[in-house]
């Protein structure tokens, strides 16, 4: 398959490439949101520990 033929996808490029692009976006979004969720939970836990420490003292 030539490079031009690869991008043209036999005339179906406007259907195939948006699907691939959306799949990549969904994969990246999942990674980003899971990392963010974990990081926010860590921050909340740290804050809870700090508050518990200040109350105890």
């Amino acid at each position, binding site marked *: 398959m030539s490079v031009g033929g690869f991008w043209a996808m036999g005339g*179906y490029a406007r*259907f*195939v490439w948006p699907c*691939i692009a*959306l799949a990549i976006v969904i994969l990246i979004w999942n990674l980003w949101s*899971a990392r963010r*969720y*974990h990081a926010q*939970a860590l921050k909340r836990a740290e804050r809870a*520990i700090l508050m518990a420490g200040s109350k105890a003292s």
Partner: protein
Amino acid sequence: MWTWFYRLASPPYVYRVASAFTPWLLLTAGIAIAYGLIDGLAFAPPDYQQGDAFRIVYVHAPAAWLSLFAYTTMAVSGAIGLIWRIKMAHALSAAAAPIGASFTILALVTGSLWGRPMWGTYWAWDPRLTSELILLFLYFGVMSLRAAFEDPARGDRAAALLAIVGVVNVPIIHFSVQWWNSLHQGATVAKFGKPAMDASMLWPLLAMLLGFMLFFGAVLCMRLQGEVLNRERQASWVREAIKA
């Protein structure tokens, strides 16, 4: 024999296992998805009927499969949480929901984009398409219900009940193409006997299926760590883990 099962009820154990598995799952998922995409898009031959449009299968089928798998995971862990009152099972159920919803959206949109050149329409109220859309609404329902309660334990129980009731939709989606007249094609890979696909097309598809499953495992582990921390932030083991 059941020791492993009871250990999964321990938050520090779950947190430790999830953080240990995440990088390996991500690495293997990346390799499988890269191989599947490159082989499927560049090297697999075009379909004799659908031409190159069939290549949408390499993201559509794994996304659709994962949408069912994530829902089943959510419902089974919800049931375990209800029956054995294991908080970590509810945490797993909560972690699976947004991932499953995102892959259901991917399956619906890619299916729609595939339907336009093959069926002449982006959408039809076909049994497979309609039941998959209901699955998306079920995901949204479960997530909204969990968030609607001030008491997280009540939210978990309500969400688990809805997830269990909704699991009846999973076999409906799977068998809809056999039970009713459908525009959607029948099973290609999961056929008993010989799959209706040539090996040169099948291998990248299997790699993508495996890659998406591993990716689901990785993201599930990451979200699960967040869920565990949110639920256990007052526990002494969290203090130790953060200090370390």
